[in-house]
């Protein structure tokens, strides 16, 4: 479960510019030492592990991953999964967030809660629900047959349709919430102003609405992309081995085939993708026209 991490960290409001030692600063020590030992050290060790094998320094892990079309294909699968999921979430989430931001009063609170609530339900539980839906005797086939789209139930489980259906279902709120928080701040008079200046709806959307909501698109897009590229539970249950992703390979490398260097190399590649994405998005958000809030 992750929340909108649109701003990478909430920054302290007014930290004095000058720093002099203050004994009270010692209160930060337990937390910092803990995070250094339990978080920074393991991650750095993992990066180190990807460069060693039994004989010392080695790039074998990377050579294996980046030199083998099979693993390249898997990296491609992960990126494809993340791209399509993000695109669909944006296409569906944008109008939904817009409606949510424009509705006022009690309805806004209720609808907001309804978008928010699924986020707090365990991903395992939701994916379990999705697998039940996708069964031959599940609700999707039931609806399709009864509405006359198909004559007899078809196989949905372990298809790419069920994968994307599930991914969007699980990650859509992560797109809507950042979009909503930006759209809510948007002054509707700007749109009226644009219309009063003779701009048509398409022009107003492209020149006013879209640029002003860009920070939300970037935040939501980064968020959905970075969690769907690393998704494990949902693809695992919905398509399994038919659609291998980097996460699947990493888990297998450690839990089944015990090829730690392979797993570590894959993990570092994923780390690099995530880091690149976060840096790119914070760069985009800071450039003029995409200013924060």
């Amino acid at each position, binding site marked *: *479960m992750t929340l909108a991490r649109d701003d990478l960290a909430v920054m302290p409001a007014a930290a004095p510019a000058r*720093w002099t030692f203050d004994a009270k600063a010692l*209160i930060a020590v337990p937390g910092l030492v803990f995070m250094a030992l339990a978080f920074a050290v393991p991650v750095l060790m993992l990066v180190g592990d990807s460069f060693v094998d039994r004989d010392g320094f080695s790039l074998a892990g990377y050579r294996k991953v980046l030199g083998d079309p099979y693993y390249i294909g898997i990296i491609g699968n992960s990126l494809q999964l993340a791209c399509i999921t993000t695109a669909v979430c944006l296409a569906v989430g944008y*109008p939904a967030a817009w*409606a949510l931001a*424009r509705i006022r009063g009690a309805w806004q609170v209720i609808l907001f809660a309804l978008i928010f609530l699924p986020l707090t339900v365990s991903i*395992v539980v*939701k994916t*379990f629900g999705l697998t039940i839906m996708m069964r031959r005797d599940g609700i999707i086939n039931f609806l399709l047959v009864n509405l006359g789209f198909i004559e007899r139930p078809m196989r949905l489980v372990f298809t790419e349709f069920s994968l994307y259906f599930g991914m969007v279902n699980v990650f859509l709120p992560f797109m809507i919430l950042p979009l909503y928080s930006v759209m809510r701040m948007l002054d509707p008079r700007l749109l009226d102003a644009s219309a009063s200046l003779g701009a048509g709806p398409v022009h107003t959307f492209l020149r006013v609405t879209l640029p002003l909501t860009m920070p939300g698109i970037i935040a939501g897009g980064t968020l959905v992309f970075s969690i769907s590229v690393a998704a494990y539970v949902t693809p695992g249950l919905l398509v399994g081995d038919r659609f291998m992703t980097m996460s699947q390979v990493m888990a297998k490398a450690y839990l089944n085939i015990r090829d730690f260097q392979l797993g570590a190399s894959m993990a570092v590649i994923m780390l690099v993708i995530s880091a690149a994405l976060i840096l790119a998005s914070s760069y985009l958000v800071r450039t003029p026209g995409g200013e924060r809030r």
Partner: protein
Amino acid sequence: MALFGSLFCRLVLGLVIAFLFLPILIVLTVSFSSSAVFAFPPPGFSLRWYASLGKADSMLQAVWLSTQIAALSTAISLVLGTLCAIAITRGMIPGAKAVATFMASPLMLPGLVLGIAFLQAARDFGLRDTYSTLLIAHVVITMPFIMRTVLASLSLFDFAMVDAARMLGRSYPAALWTVLVPNILPGFVSGGLFAFIASFDNYPVSIFLVDVRTKTLPIQLLNQVEMSPDPTVAAISALLILGTIAALIVCDRLVGLKRMASI
């Protein structure tokens, strides 16, 4: 505005909500089904799967373990994270901005990567106890949630109040406890709730750290879904959903849902 005619947008919003609730409602429906298969529509109503929960020992053990780990890791993060956030907000330490980003960064990393890192480090450090390994890893998982909400709350807190309490005869720690803590309680509640949920639901980190006898709930659930899916899983899932809703309502009464979500 006209392009995104408000009617069209509202229709999309309605469909989105229905779509998001679909799997959740399915799980709830199935848990009350009289049949052991997941046919739709369900043939009849029954509470037998809830009754059978009492016998699902491994499931109940997993619930208990996850509750303990989530509660303890949230509590530890609250204490360590709040102290750190105070030092960051007051500029007591150099590079406060970088420190804040560091403390919140586990949220930015893929869960599996973290899990693998913990697994390797636990091996290298010779930490064999599953329970403590899980706990340490979950403190790392929960820390960003606490940092974000507490930093946000502290940015609105007037630290002159702490000075005022000191001048009125309270030591620095006592001033923090009697003035700062009650005033940023909403931040603690919302940050704590999300930290708890994040730990309770965590799969990708825990999967590398559990052993045969010590399994957290998401691991146990997924095992069951993969091995022998039956409506017992739906029943426990339904209870989880209801528990989450209950927790959200309680926290909403305490601090307001909007405030919790806008972290």
